[in-house]
């Protein structure tokens, strides 16, 4: 084993994660390797300082309000979904009415009506195409069964 192989054991030794056999192997190595001994000492000092870093505790009233913050987001999320669905329904309704009025209006030229119908057909085709693609990839998604 080279010194590099002992680096992982060094971390385990420092954090008390080694079993007795591993500990003995590493201590044996330390007896013969001054570089690892020096490095272990440096890591030990670093660990001591880092372990001393603690955060200032927050007041209880902040923790009491924490759930409200999460709950408000959940509630707002539902609000956004409802508003979006309602907006889409209203838009479709208003759009349909506007198109109906234009088609039925005898004062407007046939060219405008044909262009409008072509525009609607085009948008509908694009929408169906994108939707079909999404559904196809959802079915064929190789990662859909990956456990999270």
């Amino acid at each position, binding site marked *: 084993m080279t010194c590099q192989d002992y680096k992982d054991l060094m971390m385990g030794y420092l954090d008390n994660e080694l079993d007795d056999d591993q500990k003995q192997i590493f201590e044996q190595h330390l007896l013969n390797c001054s570089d690892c001994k020096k490095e272990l000492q440096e890591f030990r*000092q*670093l*660990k001591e300082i880092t*372990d001393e870093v603690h*955060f200032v505790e927050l007041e209880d009233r902040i923790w009491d309000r924490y759930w409200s913050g999460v*709950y408000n987001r959940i509630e707002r999320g539902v609000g956004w979904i409802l508003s979006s669905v309602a907006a889409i329904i209203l838009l479709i309704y208003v759009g349909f009415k506007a198109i109906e009025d234009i088609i039925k209006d005898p004062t407007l030229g046939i060219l405008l009506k044909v262009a409008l119908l072509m525009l609607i057909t085009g948008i509908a085709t694009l929408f169906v195409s994108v939707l079909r693609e999404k559904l196809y990839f959802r079915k064929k998604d190789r990662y859909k069964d990956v456990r*999270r």
Partner: protein
Amino acid sequence: MTGCCKNETVLLQQVKGNCKAAFEEIVRKYMKQAYHIALGFVGNKEDAMDLSQEAFYRAYKNINTLDCDRKFFPWFYQILKNLCFTHLRKQSNRLRCQLDGVVEETAQHEYGLKFNPELIAEKNENKVRVWQALGQLDEKHREIIVLRHFQNLSYKQIAEALYCSKDTVTTRLYHARRMLKQILNRKEVDVK
């Protein structure tokens, strides 16, 4: 990190059935841990609070993708981590724009200085330097230091949270500590 007890499995099933009270129980159980992890990642109180709450909201929204037999926290931790690091990347890009296209390392260094020292209890110069040096580590190494030192998780628990082996944890911890040591040596903290 709390283990996956039967109680949690039942709670998760209730959450899937749209029970907000069950989710509240889960939030109350993990909120401090979530906030402190986020704090270690982003270095300021306001962002840590906001990001940890947002992570719980997203967990609630996507709870159906979680298998009830699995532990909640490692799954939730992935959401929290992704949110925090996406936030950091945005901050870092903004900083780079402000400082007229500085290199990544300089942006990282500048960001480290934004780690608020007021958050440290019984602070002294060495603790503040370690805290700010943490802000200069890259994501992968900052994460392992936060989990090991600030959350005091065992290697097994870290491996569960990161979905990796214990050997990977050990190797990553070695490199993270070495980098932290290098940054501190540049700052002349006594770890030589």
